[in-house]
């Protein structure tokens, strides 16, 4: 007898209603989600409807998660591994067959539906699912590692649904707390991107060991210790991933012409962003120049060492810098706010005195690829390597005012998008009152993940184009500019060129004042 198949058939009969609800939710999701790509993006009513569909899709996502959690817990605990009074443990079950039956069940009723749902959403969005099989496979691995196995492990070391629920909540809270502690005390919130693979490997190793041991020997406490140790190890790995040693290993010292300097004038002085119990966040305006032609730089993180006149020093963790990606455009120099963290006591002691800031920047260098230009069409258009874009007429004005883009399974690689805005409605060709206005924006990511996490196979690509609004005399507030059919749109992909560390020193830096309402005695 094939025990795994026999147990699988029993579980399928037993959990038929849970399976039906779970599949119904997936089907509903697959029906709801593509509506935003298959319906015209025109008019406020339609945009509101799409927002409603997004809310519904979000709700369905939550319900799907809950249904999987119930399904997995009920499945595993139908042959509970905890305790010594279970009926099945005195029957001729082979543990490998039992575990195999459970995995088969999860593959059939959770894994396979997710892959099918992703493929369907891909097809609905205009992509060819078969062209994305590796990404679908990666997505399945991610779902197994981050959703199915953790829930399976919790169900395997708890005896009842209630205990599994409490344990799940406990693990979630513990994970958040450990990550927050690591973020505050060790990493500053930044980690090198390849550390995700180490975390994934550790997570899989801990989950597989704990589950395997529990099924093979029913040594519940040992399995619990292994799983708890795995959780701690994952947090430690996350913390170590932002350590100076790993950052130094990933970002090599460089002699590039890139120049970063203190720039107190262009965007105002530095100011205190926030004040915590231990740390003070300070925003410092900087000046970026010297970016080589055909390249871009992404300031990923910064570590500050502040040195007082009396020799006292404070060195922060590596702190992530968000949205600081710059490209060369002639001899462009740009100013950007830089988030620095200082120890509160150091800040208080040195607030009125000049200090020297030694800054270490973790910088990703990007190289421009071949641009792809297209005259703005009136319907969906495909941008190679970027995805499919749809012109948006949010105001039902008969004019397009934005682009909505989507890509298969993941965000595209970093891409610089330029458009030409028209101040006038597109119908008034020939009577245009002003020259086109350039708009630009970054889209995509440098992350190397092959696929997103979840049931939706389609990733919405956010493009925040500059200059998309204009102020008209006599009108209250800004009004949108227009993307007229036929106007040029250019997509310039960027690829990784290198990861470098740049060291800069700002002499005689004066700490800003505390924000209103904050006092050092707080």
């Amino acid at each position, binding site marked *: *007898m094939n*025990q795994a198949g*026999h147990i699988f058939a*029993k579980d399928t009969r*037993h959990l038929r209603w849970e399976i039906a609800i779970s599949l119904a939710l997936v089907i509903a999701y697959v029906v709801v989600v593509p509506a935003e790509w298959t319906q015209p993006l025109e008019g406020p009513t339609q945009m509101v409807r799409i927002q409603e569909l997004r809310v519904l899709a979000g709700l369905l996502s939550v319900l799907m998660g809950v249904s999987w959690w119930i399904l997995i817990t009920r499945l595993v605990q*139908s042959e*509970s591994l905890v*305790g*010594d*009074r*279970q*009926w099945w*443990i*005195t*029957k*001729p*079950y*082979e*543990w490998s*067959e039992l575990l195999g039956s459970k995995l088969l069940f999860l593959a059939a009723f959770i894994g396979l539906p997710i892959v099918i749902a992703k493929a369907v959403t891909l097809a609905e969005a205009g992509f060819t699912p078969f062209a994305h099989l590796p990404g679908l496979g990666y997505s399945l691995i991610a779902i197994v590692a981050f959703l199915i196995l953790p829930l399976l492990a919790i169900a395997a070391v708890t005896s009842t649904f209630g205990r599994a629920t409490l344990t799940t909540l406990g693990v979630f809270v513990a994970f958040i707390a450990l990550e927050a502690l690591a973020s505050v005390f060790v990493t500053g919130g930044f980690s090198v991107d390849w550390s995700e693979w180490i975390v994934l490997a550790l997570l899989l190793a801990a989950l597989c060991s704990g589950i395997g041991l529990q099924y093979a020997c029913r040594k519940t406490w040992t399995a619990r210790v292994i799983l708890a140790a795995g959780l701690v190890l994952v947090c430690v790995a996350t913390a170590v991933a932002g350590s100076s040693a790993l950052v130094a290993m990933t970002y090599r010292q460089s002699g590039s012409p890139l120049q970063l300097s203190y720039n107190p004038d262009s965007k105002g002085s530095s100011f205190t962003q926030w004040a915590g119990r231990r740390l003070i966040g300070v925003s410092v305006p900087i000046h970026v120049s010297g970016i080589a032609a055909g390249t871009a730089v992404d300031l990923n993180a910064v570590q500050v060492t502040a040195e007082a006149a009396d020799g006292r020093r404070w060195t922060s963790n590596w702190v992530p810098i968000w949205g600081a990606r710059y490209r060369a455009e002639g001899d462009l120099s740009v100013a950007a706010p830089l988030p620095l963290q200082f120890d509160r006591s150091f800040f208080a002691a040195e607030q009125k005195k000049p200090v020297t800031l030694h800054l270490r920047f973790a910088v990703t260098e990007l190289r421009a690829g071949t641009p792809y230009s297209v005259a703005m069409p009136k319907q969906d258009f495909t941008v190679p390597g970027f995805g499919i874009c749809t012109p948006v007429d949010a105001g039902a004005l008969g004019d397009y005012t934005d682009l909505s883009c989507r890509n298969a399974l993941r965000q595209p690689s970093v891409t610089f998008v330029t458009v030409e805005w028209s101040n006038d409605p597109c119908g008034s060709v020939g009577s245009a009152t002003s020259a086109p206005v350039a708009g630009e924006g970054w889209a995509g990511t440098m992350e190397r993940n092959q696929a997103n996490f979840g049931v939706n196979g389609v990733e919405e690509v956010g493009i925040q184009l500059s200059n998309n609004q204009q102020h008209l005399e006599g009108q209250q507030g800004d009004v949108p500019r227009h993307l007229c059919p036929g106007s040029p749109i250019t997509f310039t992909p960027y690829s990784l060129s290198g990861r470098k560390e740049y060291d800069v020193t700002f002499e005689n830096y004066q700490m800003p004042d505390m924000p209103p309402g904050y006092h050092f005695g707080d």
Partner: protein
Amino acid sequence: MNAAIRTTRLTKTFGRTDALASVDLAVPEGSIYALVGPNGAGKTTLIKLAMNILQPTAGTAEVLGKASHAMTGRDLNRIGYVSENQEYPEWMTVGAMLAYLRPFYPTWDRALEQQLMAQFDLPPERKIRQLSRGMRMKAAMAAALAFRPALLVLDEPFSGLDPLVRDELIMGLLDRSPETSIFLSSHDLSEIESFSSHVGYLEQGRLLFSEEMTELAARFREVTVTLASPAAQKAVPPQWLHYEASDSVVRFVHSSCRGEQTAADLRQMFPDAKDIEMEPMPLRAIFLAVARARRGQRVVAAHERSQA
């Protein structure tokens, strides 16, 4: 004789509590072995160690020739197990449960299954959660007997059952013996006396004796000696339990009786005896005598310790 179950210095502790202390026990093949003892004596622990549900702290248990800790699922297709406090798949019907179990056992006998269903009057369409305690035990017993196991292990199978159900279950067991070795635990002595071939007595984790029922019954005698004159104070041999002497009558339980030889020994010890009666004892009386004697010994030992 081969043993269906053999334990060697089997020990289990839970924290500081000794649930089993170095138990040596052998259940002969083909026997109906009743392990008796008061609640908390360690009967269920011993059974769970034999079934590889628990792991021993020390010592070993062999079941059908295999070390219990090394038993796999495959080894369990020759062993039936029924326990009073097992968690059953409540959502299944009786018929579905038997149908589900059928493919697990290569020796499953469909005709015997039908026979047991009829014999135990089991409703195949009834869900297990809807069954009474007695019906549930009968369903479990049917599932444990239908594959003609080489060994049937029963943990308090008759506890709390009405006499009718108990008799039905016992009839079902007797039908299977001696094809199947049966090892059962009970704290109700009267229910096992009628059909057990072997008996072991466990108290506070220690096996006080383990032997054939007939030998046990022959070994214990309630002795009454009527003397011509008041009994003189004399040393009491350890095999005399509950020794009482009042005027000219001496009463005790002899735990090592050897028939005529013992009668001759007693006549020699009590030369002025007018009459010596050696009455056989029911199992219940034997165990009560042993249990009280043990308790008395413990009280004396505790008293001596406190005096020391």
